[in-house]
């Protein structure tokens, strides 16, 4: 039983990393309806940046988080202005092709700079070790990841549902022209939302170096997982994404641990079934 709880806990932690990376996509894909298959590239570069900061200047993981968040939000904003905006929001195929192209470029650039070997990142000492709770060993770092999920879910929920910016974003998404008519700076709201998503993805990339592994092929390896979290979670629903990410993490880890012969098969089957049963995701945003 204790072993099962440990595996379950591992799954939840794994899902937590998936969530932190995908939450930005929940905004860009779920709300803004932009299919960004290159989303994982921001996580990958975020992870690499933290590794470089740690190797060169001895910056700790904690300190690199805000740097990466702000830095990649800025990169995201610039990319949105220069590239993403010019692709029609009504032509999904163009979005798919453009962002696959960007994912290829990111993979090639990362492979050229950092080579084929996976990277490691030293976790701060505070977060290492184990806690004994009711006879079960829980890794401190995993608890920290779960804490991050709770914080980010709450923050994003408040941002989207309770703030002026969130109201502007929801209005701009549902009725861009009417929103602009009311004086909402639609383009700026989109740029800002995209930037937030990219920054959070980079933070998730840093947090996930130990859990997901980090090498130049990261963008493509996890592309399906991030898509899955958002599409199964529901359009733009932060809570739905969190649930989907944790469920995905648990199923994946439990499946690989207890049914190694089935492997990833379980996840993909789950994905197809969930998409058929809930074509609009677990939680559907009301209009």
């Amino acid at each position: 039983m204790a072993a099962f709880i440990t595996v379950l806990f591992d799954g939840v932690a794994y899902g937590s990393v998936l969530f932190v990376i995908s939450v930005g996509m929940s905004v860009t894909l779920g709300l803004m309806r932009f299919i960004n298959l290159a989303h994982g590239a921001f996580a990958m570069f975020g992870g690499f940046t933290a590794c470089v900061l740690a190797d060169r200047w001895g910056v700790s993981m904690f300190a690199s988080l805000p740097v990466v968040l702000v830095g990649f939000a800025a990169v995201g904003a610039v990319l949105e202005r220069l590239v993403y905006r010019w692709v029609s929001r009504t032509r999904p195929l163009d979005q798919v092709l453009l962002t696959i192209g960007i994912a290829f470029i990111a993979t090639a650039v990362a492979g050229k700079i950092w080579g084929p070997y996976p990277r490691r990142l030293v976790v701060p000492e505070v977060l290492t070790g184990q806690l004994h709770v009711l006879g079960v060993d829980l890794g401190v770092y995993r608890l920290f990841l779960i804490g991050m999920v709770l914080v980010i879910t709450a923050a994003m929920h408040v941002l989207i549902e309770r703030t002026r910016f969130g109201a502007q974003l929801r209005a701009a998404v549902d009725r861009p022209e009417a929103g602009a008519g009311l004086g909402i700076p639609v383009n700026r709201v989109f740029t800002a939302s995209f930037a937030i998503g990219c920054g959070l993805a980079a933070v998730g990339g840093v947090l996930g170096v130990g859990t997901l592994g980090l090498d130049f092929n990261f963008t493509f390896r996890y592309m399906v997982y991030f898509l899955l979290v958002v599409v199964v979670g529901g359009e733009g629903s932060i809570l739905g994404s969190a649930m989907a990410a944790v469920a995905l993490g648990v199923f994946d880890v439990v499946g690989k641990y207890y049914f190694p012969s089935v492997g990833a098969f379980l996840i993909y089957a789950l994905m197809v079934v969930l998409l058929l049963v809930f074509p609009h995701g677990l939680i559907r945003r009301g209009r």
Partner: protein
Amino acid sequence: MTGRGTGGTAAALPSDRWRIWDTALWLVPIVAYFAFPDHLVLGSQVIITALFALSLDIVLGYAGITSLGHAAFFGLGAYTAGLLAAHGWGEPLSGLACAAVVAAVAGYLTSFLVVRGSALVQLMITLGVALLLMEAANKAARWTGGTDGLSDMTFGQLLGVFRFDLAGRTGYAYSLAIAFGAFVLVRRVVSSPFGLSLRAIREGAARMPALGAPVGRRLVAAFTFGAALAGIAGALLTQTTQAVALGVLDLERSASVLIMLVLGGTGRLYGAFIGAGLFMLMQDYLARRDPVYWQLWIGCLLVAVVLIGRGGILGIADALRARWAGRSAR
């Protein structure tokens, strides 16, 4: 894109009469056979990939279904032909037919999951089905060889006469003949009333039921047809290379065939051939020098196609021709 048949008094079906440049284009692979006798193995891979891209053109270019998992059917065809040969059924043409049937059945079943959803759901389901099949092939190593693939197979002589040779002469001619047959069939289908209704659904699916067209059934038929052709392409690859690798099912294959088709131009038949030819030759040239740079190139190319060159190479050619025609008319 508007139908060519809409001019004049009565809306006629688009003509599928063979024009001179059709013949000219099909002379290219025949000339290549004699001009590059040392590169026939690459040549037959180009032809097979072009056929695969053509099958996606039916699904994406004509029926407008976004698929990021078309390799599922290519792979099914490849494994069907491979497994048949590995178990002693090495006759190529019947192997091809079996592969087409298996892929068509899979396509038919998948199509019901695909046709109703939005583009995003279509993308996810096709992707999911392809990943599912790949994982299944990976785990069923007893039959498929898993990551090692299948290579212990022998194929009989084609039509009882032609042996598959090392230089790939038979493979090349065989692939070309099958691709040509498929092309003629597809060309006939897309200029039939059925093909026209597919285009109409792509342009405005909401209005088609008002005209009495069963949208769902048409899309199911198109998806099944595309899947069957992809299965034939996969079986051809197995038969000409005498091996199946797990890669026939992977995301890279689904993505690259999509890229080729878009590069050449969707919904234009020849776009598949031009895109596949260009892509494969570039890949052969660039990837041999440095695979990383190849990825960079293909990424830049995709971004450029989306941002600048709508409609791919044939789209640009059409735009140039229209401009030239406009100027000469003035």
